[in-house]
């Protein structure tokens, strides 16, 4: 049905429009200013976002390989919103870059891959989406072409993502051998928890673990985050991770539902290890990007705790948390990116006395860090609260206690930055930064998002109604 095709795939088609538009502009050797390209892409992204909210529909196309529901549409909208914020934030960095158009080509391609991944009802479709979203990302990590660190990070990224895809594929191939099909519904109907199935599942879990950087598989994360340009780092830590988490929960809850008792203990161990090691390593970091990298590892630990609850509340709290996490982490990265592009400084010590010269930016960073730490008036508190509540459904109080203690540990390193900005005295603090319009809009969206989702419960209830 042609109508179905256009309606169900409208977000994807919009992105394809951007990709081909940019490609033809590039081929036609159009001499556009970087600002023009950015504004064009931002307008089309806003249109995509608006279209995503417009019509509600559910359906399957491509021989049941691609499906869309209202929940998936909401997840796509969350990712589009995040990409829009990052696109606004990258203004200062891309303004003078020689290859701004290629950057947007790669960025939108990865977003398209994530959309296909979210809509997949089949492991083949999932794999294609996954690779479409990771291969261009490695090229984006290398976008500071003359920096040594950038290419080193890109190589680490592509090797580790190829290795994790290989593990994932090995698991999928065994699953195919057992079931005889790669569609989600067929696998869900056929598996019973035999040892061979558990072997295949462990391999698939390891592949996912790499992508969400859960602890035994996290070693690439900090290096890649530090070496990549800051907008790409924020994209990696928020959008790409969020998309994989959305798919992870679909795969666990609908495909491997009958093995729930088996994977509960796997997630338990992963969650405890991820929280602890992420927190302990975040404490000793001096570089802001590396510090945010380890903090994002620790956040994944809390998310895994929420997922282990296996209920409607778990899916809801995960999606809600990713929404909040997009706002808070992007606000933090936005300020770090402004400071870095103005002065090239990324150390925590450089932020000493930041409040004296840049009060507004200091408050923005402080609110973002409070939200990441989970301090009540901000949205981060409710995100963590719902995750832990969902995890508590299993009645495993030891796990909940460990999580609560980890939240206290995490306060140390988040507040260390706040202390440096507000309380430490510095004879020569960073001078006042002039914020251009588009990063300003991005920061305002983030702060408003943090405060509104924190004070108003509508978002959580809306997601809950879609999940159940």
């Amino acid at each position, binding site marked *: 049905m042609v109508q179905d095709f256009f309606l169900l795939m409208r977000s994807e088609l919009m992105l394809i429009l951007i990709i081909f538009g940019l490609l033809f502009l590039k081929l036609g050797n159009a001499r556009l200013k970087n600002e023009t390209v950015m504004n064009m892409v931002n307008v089309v992204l806003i249109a995509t976002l608006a279209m995503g909210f417009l019509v509600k529909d559910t359906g399957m196309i491509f021989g049941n390989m691609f499906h869309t529901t209202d929940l998936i549409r909401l997840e796509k909208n969350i990712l589009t919103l995040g990409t829009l914020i990052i696109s606004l934030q990258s203004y200062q960095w891309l303004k003078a870059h020689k290859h701004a158009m290629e950057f947007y080509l790669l960025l939108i391609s990865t977003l398209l891959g994530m959309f296909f991944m979210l809509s997949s009802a089949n492991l083949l479709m999932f794999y294609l989406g996954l690779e479409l979203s990771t291969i261009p990302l490695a090229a984006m990590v290398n976008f500071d072409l003359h920096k040594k660190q950038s290419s080193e990070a890109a190589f680490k990224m592509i090797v580790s993502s190829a290795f994790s895809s290989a593990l994932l594929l090995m698991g999928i191939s065994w699953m*195919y051998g057992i079931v005889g099909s790669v569609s989600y519904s067929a696998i869900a109907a056929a598996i019973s928890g035999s040892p061979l199935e558990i072997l295949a599942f462990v391999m698939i879990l390891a592949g996912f673990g790499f992508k969400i950087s859960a602890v035994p598989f996290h070693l690439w994360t900090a290096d890649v985050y530090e070496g990549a340009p800051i907008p790409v780092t924020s994209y990696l830590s928020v959008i790409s991770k969020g998309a994989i988490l959305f798919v992870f929960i679909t795969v666990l809850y609908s495909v491997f539902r009958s093995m729930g008792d088996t994977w509960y203990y796997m997630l338990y161990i992963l969650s405890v290890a991820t929280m602890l090691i992420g927190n302990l390593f975040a404490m000793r970091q001096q570089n802001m990007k590396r510090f945010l990298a380890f903090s994002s590892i620790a956040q994944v630990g809390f998310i895994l705790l929420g997922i282990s609850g296996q209920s409607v509340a778990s899916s809801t709290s995960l999606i809600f948390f990713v929404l909040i996490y997009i706002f808070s982490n992007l606000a933090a990265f936005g300020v770090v990116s402004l400071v870095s592009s103005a002065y090239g400084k990324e150390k925590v010590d450089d932020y000493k006395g930041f409040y004296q010269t840049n009060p507004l930016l200091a408050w923005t960073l402080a609110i973002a860090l409070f939200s990441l730490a989970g301090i009540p008036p901000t949205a981060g508190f409710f995100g963590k609260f719902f995750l832990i509540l969902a995890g508590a459904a299993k009645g495993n109080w030891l796990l909940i206690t460990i999580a609560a203690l980890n939240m206290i540990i995490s306060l140390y390193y988040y507040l260390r930055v706040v202390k440096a900005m507000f309380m430490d005295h510095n004879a020569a603090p960073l001078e006042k930064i002039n914020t251009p319009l588009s990063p300003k809009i991005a920061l305002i969206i983030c702060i408003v998002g943090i405060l509104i989702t924190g004070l108003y419960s509508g978002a959580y209830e809306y997601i809950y109604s879609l999940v159940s």
Partner: protein
Amino acid sequence: MVPVSHILLLSTALFFIGMYGLFTRRNMIALLMSIELMLNSININFVAFNKYVWPGQLDGIFFTIFIITIAAAEAAIAIAIVINLYRSHLSIDVNDAAELKH
């Protein structure tokens, strides 16, 4: 006919030889070759399952075709990154690209 267990043994061995290469080699191109080895072992696995266990459908073969294509795309990007890395480091040894630590 060759029994399926022989083929699965071959593919598993190839997979772990590739993994061993990935962990021990120091040359970046050799790392990429190891990854290709792992992906090809998965292709063997898919084709074997398709032929022996589930004849009469083509899911495994399709998957193999897509894996081959994507492996080529991955190698293209990876080699582009290695070339760019060579320009700044003048080496493709993993030990020489060790600026990011702790």
